[in-house]
């Protein structure tokens, strides 16, 4: 809770920085501030401690704490990585504070206990992102992506709140605990419009997590937005959206799972197949990563379905998947940013900067799910969960699509070893080199020593 205030304070501090001329050290200050926010976050919680707070508006239970940790840590890495982007142009403080607001929204989405908080958190996150997506004002693509994101995002929000309204009408409350109890007490007497509300909320959130068929915005927006913001969307925003999805459907509506789980099935199948196949033909690495990001949602949802289906209330596979994916994705984007600064071509990258290429290879392999990288362990956990819920056909489909995904990931690798490509060396600052090295280590260490038990303790639900 104090975490929230600290984050908000950091955001405002970033704005003030414009006035007090703190720009040079802004990123560092913000990182420290976020680290301070983490200090208020418990290492782990158990049930007794995870009481709802602030008139039951927020609840930092196990999964919320885990998601928050993940969000803040990823943001710290992101800030480290994107210091260059933030410093570009005139709006350093604006962009920084908007990013912090995104994080604030994300944390709210991970810890809300009331539909109002969900809505507000989502909107803080979205509005800041709309602006950030368009922050490269001299680029038409950036503006187009901001507009697309904005228009479709608000449209989807309409459905989300329509759903919230219907659920409220049926359950008489916005409080998650009360809704849960209401569902529990009236298992058979739920009105039809309650279910309509549930699926409309699902639509709204599915848009945010960019699951097929509500994913269309994602590739375009990811491609058009400044690369650093794209990576923010692919990591922090995705984590927040999934956290919200988990909170709503994994916890509150899990008792009615039989009414909506088939829809998620269908979304899983579509999300596994369509983006994975579409990504193959992409010519731009950034757009390919966008499709890959959508495709990964398929695996996450697979884990989600498995949990919902198996009455297994531990989001560990999802959290781990998000962590692994975020690290790999950040690593890939960090390389992409450097490459874009140097002409934008990956060809011959290995000969131009070995470590950058190695980071990219490991990142791509991790995303493709090849052991011993983190992505493999993540997929492993998801598959285990899915198998325990007897979702064998879905697992086989997931396996096949992840083999397909190798094709587009490896096309980049192939390009990096292209001998006829550009030879102009790519220079990387020390700070980014260290960051990449940390990513590299993390991707491998998370793969080999996934620290499941640690996470388990963290979640404890």
């Amino acid at each position, binding site marked *: 809770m104090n975490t929230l205030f600290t984050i908000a304070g950091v955001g405002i501090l970033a704005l003030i920085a414009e006035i007090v001329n703190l720009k040079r050290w802004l990123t560092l200050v913000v990182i420290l501030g976020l680290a301070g926010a983490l200090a208020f976050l418990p290492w782990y919680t158990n049930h007794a401690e995870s009481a709802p707070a602030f008139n039951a508006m927020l609840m930092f239970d196990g999964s919320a704490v885990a998601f928050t940790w993940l969000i803040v840590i990823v943001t710290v890495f992101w800030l480290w990585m994107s210091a260059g982007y933030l410093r570009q142009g005139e709006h350093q403080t604006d962009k920084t504070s908007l990013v912090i607001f995104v994080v604030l929204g994300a944390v709210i989405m991970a810890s809300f206990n009331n539909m109002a908080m969900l809505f507000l958190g989502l909107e803080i996150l979205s509005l800041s992102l709309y602006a950030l997506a368009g922050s490269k004002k001299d680029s038409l693509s950036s503006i187009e992506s901001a507009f697309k994101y904005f228009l*479709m995002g608000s449209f*989807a929000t309409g459905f989300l709140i329509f759903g919230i309204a219907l659920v409220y009408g049926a359950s008489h409350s916005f409080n998650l605990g009360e809704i849960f109890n209401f569902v529990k007490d009236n298992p058979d007497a739920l009105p039809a419009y309650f279910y309509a509300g549930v699926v409309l909320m699902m639509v709204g959130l599915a848009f945010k997590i960019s699951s097929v068929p509500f994913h269309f915005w994602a590739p*375009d927006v990811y491609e058009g937005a400044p690369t650093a913001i794209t990576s923010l969307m692919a990591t922090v925003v995705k984590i927040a959206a999934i956290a919200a999805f988990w909170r709503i459907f994994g916890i509150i509506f899990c008792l009615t799972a039989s009414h909506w789980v088939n829809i998620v099935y269908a979304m899983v199948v579509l999300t596994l197949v369509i983006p994975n196949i579409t990504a193959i*033909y992409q010519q731009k690495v950034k757009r390919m990563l966008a499709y890959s990001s959508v495709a990964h949602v398929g695996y996450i949802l697979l884990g989600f379905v498995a949990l919902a289906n198996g009455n297994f209330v531990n989001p560990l596979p999802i959290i781990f998947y998000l962590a692994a994916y975020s690290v790999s994705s950040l690593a890939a984007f960090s390389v992409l940013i450097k490459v874009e600064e140097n002409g934008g071509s990956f060809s011959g990258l290995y000969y131009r900067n070995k470590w950058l290429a190695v980071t990219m290879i490991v990142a791509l392999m991790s995303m493709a799910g090849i052991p011993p990288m983190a992505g493999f362990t993540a997929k492993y956990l998801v598959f285990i969960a899915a198998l325990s819920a007897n979702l064998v056909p879905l697992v086989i489909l997931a396996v096949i699509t992840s083999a397909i995904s190798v094709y587009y990931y490896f096309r980049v690798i192939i390009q990096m070893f292209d001998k006829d490509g550009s030879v102009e060396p790519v220079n990387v600052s020390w700070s980014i080199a260290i960051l990449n090295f940390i990513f590299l280590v993390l991707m491998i260490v998370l793969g080999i020593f996934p620290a499941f038990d640690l996470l388990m303790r963290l979640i404890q639900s």
Partner: protein
Amino acid sequence: MVAAALIPLFPLLGFLLISLNVNRLQKYVAATIACGMMLLAFLVGVYTFFTTSGPVQIDLFTWIKAGSFESTFGFLIDPLSLIFILVITGVGFLIHVYSIGYMHDDEGQNRFFSYLNLFVFFMLLLVMGSNYLIMFVGWEGVGLCSYLLIGFWFRNQEYNSAANKAFIMNRIGDLGMLIGIVMIFMNYGSLDYGTVFGGNHNTAITTTITLLLFVGAMGKSAQIPLYTWLPDAMAGPTPVSALIHAATMVTAGIYMVVRNNILYLMSPISMEVIMIVGLATALLAASIAIAQNDIKKVLAYSTVSQLGLIFVALGLGAFTAGIFHVVTHAFFKALLFLGAGSVIHALGGEQNLRKMGGLRKYLPVTYLTFIIGVLAISGIPPFAGFFSKDEILAAAFEHNKIVWALSLLTSLMTAFYMFRLLFMTFFGSERAGEHAMSHIHESPKSITVPLMVLAALSVLGGFLNIPEALGGHHAMANFLQPVLAPVEAHEANHSTEIILMIVVVALTLVVIFLAYNMYVRRNDTSVDPEETTGVRRVLTYKYYVDELYNAIIVKPLYALSKVLDNIVERLGIDGIVNGLGKTVVYGSRGLRFFQDGSIGYYLFVMVVGIILILGYTINW
């Protein structure tokens, strides 16, 4: 007794010494090593022969062991193997000596001797092995050496093809044999001769086993249908033809059948098959031999024919007669080949009979020894072939008159084509080219001495096993007694036997006269084989068997392979795999158009999705 283990060791040593230093050794050193090793092996063989009483088994080490399967690397010294050891090392030694002269000018002489030594090693393994697997080692090993030696002059691709053909046809037989061996193991739990022969026999299984083993023999001993490699094998140097493709290797099949006589006697069907195959081969090959014009081809078909005859004997249960004929055949056929080699050597490589003639005054030693060989093979008493062949005919007569008649026919054809060969080579007009005639000379000592020794053996070899009808004691039969299954001996009475002999000899003489009439008096050599017609043409072209095999096996196999490669593999299997990949890529190309960049369209799809989802939910 361990000394016997040295017998194969010497040639192996020779092989290693020569082959590891093939470029460093002087020619005469290599030749000396090779011949010396052969002599040592022969001497040890003789020593063993005189010191051994009864079968002795020498186990060296466990070779292969896997689960219940165990096979030792060991030797079995018994009368049967001793006879073969002596023939192999003895004749082998002579042929080594002969090769010194014959291969003197060849740059690959050292290589040649190393191969020869290797061959002898494998041949000894074959006959000395104490179990089927060691026999099989030798069996395949001699095939390898045969391959290497047929293709010895590797610049000539035809020779290489002949070598390949030999190896592959042998391998076809070997597969049958291998499966037979495995079935032996399955049914007897061991591959040791002793265990197998003493095991429980089941007629049906034994029949299968023996037939499969005989398939191996068909390949190695050039029987129908796997005989066509042997005439082609004449591509190798002549000593090779003498040693491998006449005297020793091709008799491996006979050795194998005799070695397994206990099994074969269990299975009348197999015996019948062997006899019929042998008889058919004998007739077929003999008839082809009549129309051949290549001196070595004639001898090759003669070998095939003689081997067929021996199989007739084996099929009739006359194992001793078979072995006896193997021994005498080794002597006179080696003699004939070496004689032919001498002629070829003298004529500078000419092998065509139609370009020979009248050579007796130029090559007196060769001529004389050759005549002995021809007489021996034609079965003129008292030369070696007479006794052995007579014994086969006697066995046939007793068994079945038709078999006898056909065997006799073979024998008469043998006499005919052998004398044809003799006459066309040494009699009549001198048809060789001037260039060849200008260089003609009698061969050196290293060639003629082995000829003479072999001639002597061809004269005397028959006395090893004089039939009782002629007052002998069947010395060889008695010697082989321990190896052979006891058979009810119901010999024809001696007078019948003697009458038969007289009839045979008389008919043979008639045939020889016929040949003389045709090829010396009428000098019937001017017919170009291309212009022949009718039966003669069919015979000249060897019944078109090679063409037939080519048409029904080789070509279809290649055609099938091409189809498999180009259609099934490329278009079919790989096509499916690549097709799947391409489908995904095309799918990608198509799917990405759904992402057409227009917000209106995106929203539209979203709404459709929502309608479907809501519709699904309220219908719940």
